[in-house]
């Protein structure tokens, strides 16, 4: 989609725009449902059935199955909604950061602390 012209390339960054919002709609809608504990419990009880209910496409389903954060973003996931998915597993944002950058959590925390210098 290039209705509004050429996209800016920002290294390591996916801007959540209309194209991503369309691609990720089902995935983000499922993650939005995790605002309710009952829905989180239903996901944990039967992940396949829960994903099917929201109509995830195969790419999204696989990324959910693998807990693959970069894959979820590539499949249209938005960070704010994916955070609710991460919440099910009690993962915090530093866990998520480490997963995306191929670091251990301690390495990722050290990287953050280094930004203060």
């Amino acid at each position, binding site marked *: 989609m290039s209705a509004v012209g050429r996209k800016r390339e920002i290294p390591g960054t996916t801007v959540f725009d209309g194209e991503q919002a369309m691609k990720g709609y089902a995935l983000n809608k499922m993650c939005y449902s995790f605002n309710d504990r009952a829905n989180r419990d239903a996901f944990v009880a039967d992940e396949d059935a829960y994903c099917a209910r929201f109509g995830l496409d195969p790419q999204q389903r696989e990324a959910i199955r693998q807990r693959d954060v970069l894959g979820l*973003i590539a499949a249209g996931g938005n960070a*704010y909604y994916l955070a609710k998915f991460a919440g099910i597993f009690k993962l915090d944002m530093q866990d998520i950061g480490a997963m995306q950058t191929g670091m251990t959590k301690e390495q990722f925390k050290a990287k953050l602390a280094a*930004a203060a210098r």
Partner: protein
Amino acid sequence: MAKIVGAITTSHVPAIGGAIAKGLQNDPYWKPFFDGFPPVRHWLAEVKPDVAVIVYNDHGLNFFLDKMPTFAVGAAPTYANADEGWGIPQVPPFQGDPALSWQLIESLVADEFDLVTCQEMKVDHAFTLPMALCWPGQKWPVRTVPVVVNTVQAPLPSAARCYKLGQAIGRAIENWDDELRVLVMGTGGLSHQLDGQRAGFINKEFDLRFMDSLVQDPTWATRYSIDDLIELAGTQGVELLNWLVARGTLGPSVRKLHANYHIPISNTAAGLMVLEPAR
């Protein structure tokens, strides 16, 4: 006439809620952050606002992508937090000020800000945590008006547009025929990026320049496009738009009463400022 007593701009990282609930304010990790707030509370006790207009972005609690307003104003009698998906500790509900909400709505639409109005609205951590940082007893002494800016789904409103929204909110308040003392809050930022290979990106130099600009040169950030701001401050650092709205309400010149800046809280460079209009 109503009067803006000043603005507080602060980060709103969800982990702050957990730290408050666990009483970690003096923990070595958290202390440099929480130590920024006693001067804010001291100032609030002096200026005694009646109402807080809180400019923030919703993170998928009240709004989903099915309907995503660029700007929205709450006009509800009360606002409550809810489970945001990771079991954030809850805070008591907030009293609204529907009369001031509708004054903002009338005035902003007349000023060509065609916003969404919400007579029911859940408020998320971006609203509740700054309130809890200002009033840790969580007995809210102010009524509240939420103003929500889309920082979630591009296209986002430009920095220039956000500054102008702040100016328009300032006019709406100053023209309100009621002797109210109004606090403005702008929450979010500063630089951080949660997603992608660049997760963990923080830009101290940019943040400090931005904070300085709010005092010295308030439209400095309006030279940047949204893509520029994402590159400079991170995909979520663009929440600094909420700070620009808050700054815009204060008029051309301000006094900086207090500031704090600390890296990191969670994945975020945490900023805090208290600004007062220079009259």
